[in-house]
């Protein structure tokens, strides 16, 4: 699995679906879990993926500062992961190595 593929999957999961759910939750009558409109595909998906939406909201709350310093610890931990993985990929590219995590 290449870094590019992992990055694309992570981006779709974290930003793509998150944005879609937030958008769908802001329109019309909300579904059982407040995600997507009731009876729509978005609503059904939202109900199934409630846990994911909660992740998104927890991150949003941390970025808004609603959890004070504790929220920044969560954001910082995730940022460390992203920075390290990005740096590793950058180093591989600098050494003219393929950016593959598994050879």
């Amino acid at each position, binding site marked *: 699995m290449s870094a590019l593929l992992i990055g694309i999957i992570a981006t779709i999961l974290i930003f793509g679906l998150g944005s879609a759910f937030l958008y769908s939750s802001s329109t019309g009558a909300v579904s059982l879990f407040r995600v997507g409109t009731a009876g729509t595909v978005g609503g059904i998906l939202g109900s199934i993926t*409630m846990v*994911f939406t*909660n992740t998104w909201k927890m991150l949003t*709350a941390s970025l808004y500062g*609603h959890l*004070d310093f*504790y929220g920044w610890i*969560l954001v*910082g931990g995730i940022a460390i992961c992203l920075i390290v993985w990005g740096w590793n990929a950058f180093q591989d590219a600098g050494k003219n190595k393929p950016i593959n*995590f598994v050879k």
Partner: protein
Amino acid sequence: MNKRKLEVSMMVGALLLLVIGLPTGLWMANGVNSWLSGTDTYAQVENTTAFYDGPILDDNVEHRYASVNGTVETEETPTWDVTLEWDSVTLGSTGTDNKVVFNWNVSVDDIINSKFTGLRLKLNCSKRLTVLVNAVKWDGVSLTSVEAYSNAHIDNESSTVHWNITPMGILAIKNDLNPDATDVVWFQIILEGYDTAKLTTGDTIQFQFATSESGNVYSFTNYQILSFSAVIFGIIFGLIGLASTKYWNPLGPEKKSRKRSGRKKSRARRS
């Protein structure tokens, strides 16, 4: 497993931890807290002191109650008695489709920082009612309203509605409102006629609103559950990130063994 395979495993693991582990952890923390709490205790919300009496409508009219007929808001002067468990309001508005709005003087932060686990609404009316709970923000210029609880209908008899408050749920409401420090935030409990049974002049609603909260001093507040989860998962993610650097290799001994095996191979090639 070499360091790179470990790194991929950690990336996948971190992603799963983020999208599944974090909310599951919050859910479990809340569950453990409920177990610690034991039986919740109910406290009646005292109307005269607990209901917000500041500006609640766009025209800054000060009142505790409002009945809304379309776009026209009318001040109500209900009959009630706080010395009884049940209070009541009789609509004086001449409209044909009224709403009764109770303003609960509790902010989102108050709930987050408390051990509230729910709001219990006991209602008695001759008509079927729809119950809504909205979180409201007044920034001095305009009102912002976010739905906190909905989809509850009660029949034309004594019924009880529970709005179960979870740490994640109340945090989501705060996200949606995103109030500044100077904003006034409170909750509105809105009752209106369900379907064709609209509230009209002379209709009487009996009500009793109570909060449920943990009676155990050793249980945690909603904020403590959220912040504790954020810290724990932040540290875990940080450690995963550090394990991906060259400064800390959790597979250190294996690295040495790989070197040894490499030497053995080179010796074999030479011979």
